[in-house]
């Protein structure tokens, strides 16, 4: 558990507070919806999906939010502009909290920006993400839109050491400000297992101790591309989930304020694990605060004891 000497900022993202000292606010969980590999998706290009299953996933996640106190953000994917618009239209009616949108397709992202503006959703839309490869056209569109919240991805192929990564992060933060972003979470980018996975946890501590900004990470990307759990006999769902949960918990302990846990199909398991560790963090932070003689508010998770 960490108590940062550096003052920690926290922002309200569409009703959900992200940031602060570890243990101060509940760790926010970001569930992914409409991934191409998810069973809810019927046609990724058109954006058709099993609405009933998607609704059940959201209901389960909302139930876990109520039970644990950990807020939920939904990250919607859309492979094409058409799919993106369908997904966001449905999500806006079926989920009340803040959401992110992401696509490998720039046109799909641009459609999302326009859709959020036209539908009055900017107050709960978080752009994901401002990064090195963002083109001028999209920046201009985002700048002129009412969206003011974003994930800042601090990744560069050339930034190998911590000092370089921090330079990239600082450059991306000033880029985000120049695009008009007022509330940001900093994502140091998850690396593949064996190719840097773990360095993002270190960078997380540097972001908190050097910059004091809210942090974000998608650590599930490491196990989801890990060949070890693709081999026959280890490719079952329980084994996959255990690896995703482990990567999520590591991020939680390493001062990540909001964590993308991958598919919303795993909400029950991930919220449960995060709630368990939140109990541990609350007790540890309380004792640490006593040792230092400070009293920052602490999120008190439900212990069920």
């Amino acid at each position: 558990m960490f108590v940062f000497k550096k003052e920690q900022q926290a922002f309200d993202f569409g009703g959900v507070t992200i940031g602060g000292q570890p243990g101060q606010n509940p760790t926010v969980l970001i569930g992914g919806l409409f991934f191409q590999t998810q069973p809810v998706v019927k046609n990724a290009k058109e954006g058709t999906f099993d609405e009933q299953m998607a609704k059940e996933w959201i209901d389960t996640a909302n139930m876990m939010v109520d039970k644990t106190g950990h807020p939920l953000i939904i990250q919607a994917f859309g492979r094409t502009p058409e799919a993106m618009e369908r997904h966001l239209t449905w999500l806006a009616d079926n989920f009340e909290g803040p959401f992110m949108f992401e696509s490998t397709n720039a046109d799909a992202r641009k459609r999302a920006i326009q859709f959020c503006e036209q539908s009055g959703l900017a107050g709960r839309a978080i752009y994901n993400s401002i990064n090195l490869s963002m083109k001028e056209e999209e920046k201009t569109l985002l700048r002129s839109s009412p969206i003011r919240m974003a994930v800042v991805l601090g990744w560069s192929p050339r930034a190998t050491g911590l000092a370089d990564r921090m330079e990239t992060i600082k450059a991306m933060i000033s880029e985000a400000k120049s695009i008009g972003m007022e509330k940001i979470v900093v994502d140091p980018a998850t690396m593949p297992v064996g190719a840097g996975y773990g360095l993002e946890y270190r960078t997380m501590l540097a972001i908190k101790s050097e910059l004091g900004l809210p942090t974000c990470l998608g650590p599930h990307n490491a196990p989801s591309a890990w060949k070890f759990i693709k081999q026959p006999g280890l490719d079952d769902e329980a084994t996959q989930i255990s690896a995703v949960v482990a990567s999520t918990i590591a991020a939680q302990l390493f001062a990540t304020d909001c964590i993308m846990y991958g598919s919303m199909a795993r909400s029950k398991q991930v919220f449960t694990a995060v709630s368990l560790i939140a109990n541990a963090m609350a007790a540890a932070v309380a004792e640490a605060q006593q040792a230092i003689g400070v009293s920052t508010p602490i999120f008190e998770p439900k212990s069920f004891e």
Partner: protein
Amino acid sequence: MGMNDNRNWPPIPGDFEVKNPSSCVAICTLGKKIEVSTDYAIIGTCKTENIGIERMIVNVISNSCIRFFILAGPEIPGHKTGASVKCLHESGIDPSTRRILGAEGAIPYVENVPIEAVERFRSQVQLISMVDVTDPGEIARVADEVVLRNPGPYPADPIWVEFKARPGKASSRNMGAAIALLPEFGISFDPASSLVSRMDLVAWVTTHPTTVGVVMKSDETGTALVGQEL
């Protein structure tokens, strides 16, 4: 000879040399080791205005032969050890706060030897102030001069002081050394408090009679380990 023969003098080890224990002269060269060719009981440096002075007092009052204390060598910046010794000899220490009266150094407190020891030092030796004199010939000349005025051993038994830890003073919080969390940014993690902050890495060597540690200092030229009072 005014020494207790059952014990080895001087009682406290340090950065000094003993020549003739029955000589009436002790020479302190403050910040620099200086070789002086003359007859003396003990010659050595004294760096700090607290622990250094305490040790020096203990080694002087345990030998009644010593009647002259030559204070020479370069003054210690910040600590002002030379000026503090002069203040101590002139005015003593405050019995309640144990601060050397009139001293201007950073931490001029004599905490680990009894007041009687301080008073004995003041009455046993005559202080010859030569602060900032570093010429060995000049120091030797003065030493040779004072020997001619030797009044003989101090008319009381030598005092042997044993350093004792003061109960309740130790703080376990200080015992945990910081863990290097992000050495690139000088960020450390203190396990006792979970505090993540920018600080020098410190390994505590001793907390008695004062806290002494090894501090890691880095700059463009490299990393050095520096021992210092904390």
